[in-house]
């Protein structure tokens, strides 16, 4: 007996309520953008400069004591968060201290770090500083820039690739799904105020890759079915294709999620934000390849007459392995 996540031969109608699904997606995207503009992202030091110090001590941490110890140093905005993690030992107390970039300094000074360390050692003698990271404001500005460039580059490259392999309507559908995924991921990060650093950009790009992966598999089937069933309505072809690939879509999402969830639970707190972004991305990416990409494709329509030679270069390209 085989484990089947999706019943055999489903004939679900994914487009019975197109307005509802697109509406929900649109609403969530608006919500994400509002959150992004109102609340903003909780940028890590990679993007706004400053210093983070990770401390470890065998004594329980009282954040207010730490704060009190740092007040005389006049460092401006200092945030102290205690970190809890199932992978920690019983007497392992970890905090993250974040200090804003000091005014008028383009570069990083060791003095600030040294002062903080001395001040904290005074109240917790066994404290150790397991990591200290400082980024000057000059670099952090550039890092934001390259990050945005990376995401835009990835989306454009993919747009071009799909346009070459399929038709422009497919490319638009795929990119709509991508933008949807990226916006929702950024929205979640701003809503939950999870630290947004360089690694999250990597996660975002992976989401772009994953979401595409899913979308392309569905589109590939749509292309095949469009050739096979020339008389059937586009909506039904899309439904048929999604149903046919549904089992695979769910299987792959589940195996990927299995791997990611074990990393989320057991991988330690350092990469938890990163893994969270990916888990969210896999879920949203799976949803969007069915409900956003295909819905956009349905709205745009596709050229159906495949028998005549096409005048678009993309079509010839598509026939290579068809």
């Amino acid at each position, binding site marked *: 007996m*085989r*484990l*089947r996540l999706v019943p055999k031969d489903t004939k679900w109608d994914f487009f019975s309520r197109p307005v509802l699904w697109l509406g929900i997606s649109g609403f969530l995207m608006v919500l994400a953008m509002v959150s992004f503009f109102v609340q903003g992202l909780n940028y890590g030091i990679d993007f706004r400069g400053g210093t983070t110090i990770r401390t*470890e001590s065998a004594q329980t941490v009282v954040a207010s004591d730490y704060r009190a110890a740092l007040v005389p140093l006049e460092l401006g905005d200092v945030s102290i968060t205690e970190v809890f993690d199932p992978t920690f030992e019983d007497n392992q107390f970890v905090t993250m201290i974040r200090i804003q970039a000091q005014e008028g300094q383009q*570069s*990083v000074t*060791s003095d600030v*770090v040294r002062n903080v360390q001395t001040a904290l050692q005074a109240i917790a003698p066994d404290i*150790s*500083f*397991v*990591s*200290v990271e*400082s980024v*000057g404001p*000059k*670099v952090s500005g550039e890092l934001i820039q*390259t990050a945005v460039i*990376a995401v835009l*580059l990835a989306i454009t490259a*993919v747009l071009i*690739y*799909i346009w070459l*392999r399929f038709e422009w309507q497919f490319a638009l559908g795929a990119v709509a799904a991508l933008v949807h995924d990226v916006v929702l991921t950024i929205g979640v990060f701003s809503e939950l105020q999870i630290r947004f650093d*360089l*690694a999250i*950009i*990597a996660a975002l*790009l*992976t989401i772009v*890759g*994953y979401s*595409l*992966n899913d979308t*392309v598999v569905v589109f*590939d*089937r749509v292309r*095949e079915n469009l050739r096979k069933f020339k008389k059937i309505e586009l909506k039904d072809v899309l439904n048929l294709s999604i149903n*046919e*690939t549904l089992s*695979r879509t769910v*299987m*792959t999402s*589940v*195996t990927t*999620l*299995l*791997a*990611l969830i*074990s*990393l989320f*639970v*057991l*991988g*330690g707190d*350092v*990469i938890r934000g*990163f*893994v969270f972004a990916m888990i969210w991305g896999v879920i949203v990416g799976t949803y969007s390849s069915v409900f956003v990409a295909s819905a956009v494709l349905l709205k745009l329509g596709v050229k159906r007459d495949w028998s005549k030679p096409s005048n678009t270069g993309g079509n010839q390209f598509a026939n290579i*392995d068809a």
Partner: protein
Amino acid sequence: MLQIDLWKRVLIWAVCAFGLLMAMPNAFYERVEASNDAVAEIELGYSGNGLEEQAAMWPSWAPSSLVNLGLDLRGGAHLLAEVQVADVYEARIKAMWPEIRDMLREERASIGTIRLQPSEVDELRVRISKPEEIDRAASLVRGLARPVVSLTAAGQSDITVSSEGSTIVVALSDAEKLATDERTVQQALEIIRRRIDEVGTREPTIQRQGSDRILIQVPGIGSAAELKDIIGTTAQLTFNPVIGRGTDKDANPGPGNEVLPSLDDEGVYYTVESAPVVTGEELVDAQPSFDQNNSPAVSFRFNPTGARKFGDYTAENIGSPFAIVLDGEVVSAPVIQAHIPGGSGIITGRFAVEETTNLAVLLRAGALPAGLEFLEERTIGPELGQDSIDAGKIACIVAFVSVLVFMFLSYGTFGLFANVALILNVGLIFGLLSTIGATLTLPGIAGIVLTIGMAVDANVLVFERIREELKTAKGPARAIELGYEKALSAILDANITTFITAVILFAVGSGPVRGFAITLGLGILTSVFTAIFVTRLMIVIWYERRRPKTIEV
């Protein structure tokens, strides 16, 4: 139907075996690492201390490349430094003054007396007393220009000379500035590398980033501050003629001169000529030593040109003081007692023994041509790295096992094939990582875990397709063949798009993000290979042996 040529079979298995062989040393990480270290030491000519036994812990015929662990996994320090390239302009232009002065003095009869005017740091302003001869004077100075030494700006000269009234303005040309920047950064890179090598840490990464930045990563070092102490000092040593000594730091030094503080005596300032007689660049050796009073000092030796300059100067200036200047501070200003011909000398000051050792290292490695500004510094403790490795390992194993179980439950025998391919896949990733000497970072581990999840995708695509084909096709063999055939375009499209993002990540990203891009990219390559070739081969072999009438996928 369902045939794979023998040579293809052999090739597929050979690739797998080779990948696993290359991956194998990573399973004995500590042992291989210790052995590699010992082998490297023996090659450098060291012996004894059990080095031979240590080297023999891993057979020399076996592959011994390991996956490098990134700083976030091993602990260490990371610095991003910006070379202050503009520092060099000042030194360059100032060094031209003696030459210009001597040349114009010879022409005193026609252009009159000359005088250096106060100016911006990166130009020289020379006033002559006969303004009507300004064009001639300017063209004389222009005659000192040399062609720029660089590929892109060949044919242009290194200085621009213009005249304003009775003043000649000399500045570096833009082409020369560019060429100077290039040289400065290259030189800084080289010197940082030498300094770090002198301290003897393993596998440091020192690379240029962008036009004027240098990335320095040193595993195993205690903190970024320690690293900064080693590379942050410019150690610019010069010997300048002394004009006067005083206590006023704002004293007017006069053009061509400058006021420098004393290193040891607070409140004491020396006025010295800005153009040095000799610089530290002409040192060939520096060693910690002791002076005649047995206090720590640094002895040094010049190369022949430096020795000649130093000898000539001391011969001409017996009885007058000269200053030993280190990074803009006067270490000492002894009076020249006699002609010093041999080109060696000793720097005395109030040093501690470690200070002389450090100073000697810095002088030996050479001076940094310009100051460094640190834009980014990170210290990661070794405990944190070990915790991350441990957590990553457990997560990998759990992810692995759950995917294996899940695949078996879903696809039975075929699931088992996919599982073997998955195990091979991870082995191949490690084999590739070790072969190309890539660095594994924490996000890189995440990349591997993600690959474990996604690697089955290609197999899933094929298996699902076979299931579909079984409904219509004639017999299992045909269904398997069609399944592979028809799933291929989806597999390729899906993986190429992901691969594109991995490439972009690699190109644009830095540090840990790059590590992630590498494992993701390699993971895609290996998973496509294992899905298209390895599982297929296993299924074909299984089919040939069993010849089942019906199959269940």
